[in-house]
């Protein structure tokens, strides 16, 4: 765990001014009060591009305190470039402690994954959301989609699923798979793979969603029912992997496919790098880990 770093001078704690944070917290409170409902908020221009996590960063900045321990992941990994960049931003502007350990984090900001280790009560997970509107690709007009949510007219959403089955014999949505929240609002879970959808259901953690460019915040309070849309005779299914992780031998986790050469050689490894490393420290070994016993991925390519 990193210790608190120096604060960048000239900016308020967490970059945003207190008034802006209050505005965002009000939006968050409203979002928590109406689970799954998209609350418009006056998203600020952030010193990182729209679409690169400005919504998540604003939500995190609004809820973070000096005692918090922050974990940032992108694609499940703490070490992907954008995760590194966002973590650095908070170290610079708030000086809070950071961690790569899911268990030790009080706030986890994520793009595209939910950690494999079940979240705990008291933790907050903040999702970066590019397009918060689950109906957007069926109906491009904001005025119309807002009305559809207000009147709970979600037939069109099922038309999309119906069309998938008619064409492919299966629901062909693999990520950003729409869910119904607490029996009321249809919500975009952010572009996580549908593999992660069940983790949202009845989670003890507070789940917050920030879309900066589209200026929306929504939330799932702890222990909220989250149901993936489906048909009775075509129930929701998660993706399954036939091989275990090549590094830690985990099964039932989400795997990245890694191309090893140009001869079709490839391997599968945990997308959640913290989960994988923790398992290896605990002595689990995958087929491709080699001899470096319990080695936690260093900063170099290993020898073949």
């Amino acid at each position: 765990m990193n210790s608190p770093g120096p604060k960048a001078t000239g900016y308020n704690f967490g970059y945003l001014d207190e008034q802006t944070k209050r505005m965002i917290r009000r939006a968050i409170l409203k979002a928590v009060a109406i689970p799954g409902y998209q609350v418009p908020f006056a998203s600020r221009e952030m010193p990182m591009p729209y679409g690169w996590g400005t919504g998540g960063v604003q939500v995190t900045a609004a809820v973070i305190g000096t005692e918090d321990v922050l974990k940032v992941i992108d694609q499940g990994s703490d070490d992907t470039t954008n995760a590194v960049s966002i973590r650095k931003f908070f170290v610079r502007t708030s000086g809070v402690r950071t961690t790569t350990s899911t268990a030790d984090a009080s706030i986890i900001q994520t793009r595209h994954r939910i950690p494999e280790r079940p979240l705990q009560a008291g933790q907050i997970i903040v999702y970066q959301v590019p397009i918060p509107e689950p109906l957007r690709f069926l109906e491009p007009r904001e005025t119309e989609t807002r009305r559809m949510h207000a009147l709970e007219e979600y037939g069109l959403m099922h038309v999309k699923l119906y069309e998938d089955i008619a064409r492919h014999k299966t629901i062909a949505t693999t990520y950003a798979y729409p869910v119904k929240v607490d029996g009321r609002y249809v919500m975009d879970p952010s572009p996580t793979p549908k593999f992660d959808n069940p983790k949202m259901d009845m989670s003890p953690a507070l789940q917050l969603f920030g879309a900066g460019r589209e200026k929306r915040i929504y939330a799932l309070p702890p222990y909220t029912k989250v149901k993936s849309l489906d048909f009775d005779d075509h129930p929701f299914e998660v993706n399954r992997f036939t091989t275990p992780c090549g590094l830690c031998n985990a099964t039932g986790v989400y795997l990245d496919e890694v191309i090893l050469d140009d001869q079709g050689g490839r391997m599968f490894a945990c997308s959640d790098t913290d989960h994988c490393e923790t398992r290896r420290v605990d002595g689990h070994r995958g087929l491709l880990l080699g001899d470096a016993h319990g080695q936690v991925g260093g900063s170099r390519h290993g020898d073949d």
Partner: protein
Amino acid sequence: MAMTDDAPLLVANGLTKRYGHRIGCENVDLTLYAGEVLAIVGESGSGKSTLLQMLSLQMMQTRGDISYRMRDGQMRDLTLLNEAERRLLMRTDWGYVSQDATLGLRMSVSAGGNVGERLMGLGWRHYGNIRNEALDWLDRVEIDRNRIDDAPRAFSGGMRQRLLIAKNLVTKPRLVFMDEPTGGLDVSVQARIIDFLRGLVADLDLAVIIVTHDLAVARLLSTRIMVMRDGHVIETGLTDQVLDDPHAPYTQLLVSSVLQA
């Protein structure tokens, strides 16, 4: 609390629409009973489409009331429905068949998806049941079952119109509005659609309000007729009586011009 079957389904009083100083239609009274087919005829600009738009709640009247007997038997003032109630009514107990089927269909969604949309909107969540219902309706509107996964983009005009009818009737509405439903079609196709509309109306005991400029369509489909000119109703009665023995000079002119044609 349900009323008897001889209570009217839809009652309109003093319906008026003004566009500034121009009259769209004025002081129209109308009563429609379950299972009854009412034709509104007139030339373009007579106000018949304006009237249909108001009755089907797609346009707000300037003055007048419309009330409707809901499925629970209660007569409700339609202007007092909230938006959710209004939209539910429009997609369950009502149908709307326009001249241009592309307005009512989702052109890139399969025929099955189009027919199933209202069912899914009502909470149907069994793919197999939705599909069977859609197949059943394709049979009824005489579209080949094998076309169920094709989008209406690939359909002929007559097929689109029949698909639109299936899409509207799948929730077993009690009232269907039709605006020149055979308007853009070839004569032979028109005849077939009218024929099968007659069958459906009888089978399903549908009430229909149909707007047409074509007196032949009105004669074949409707039991009662309302003749409009310049925003006013100038003659109303049983269709056969009005067309065989028109009283108003304008109706006489309309009827004779059809005979001459």
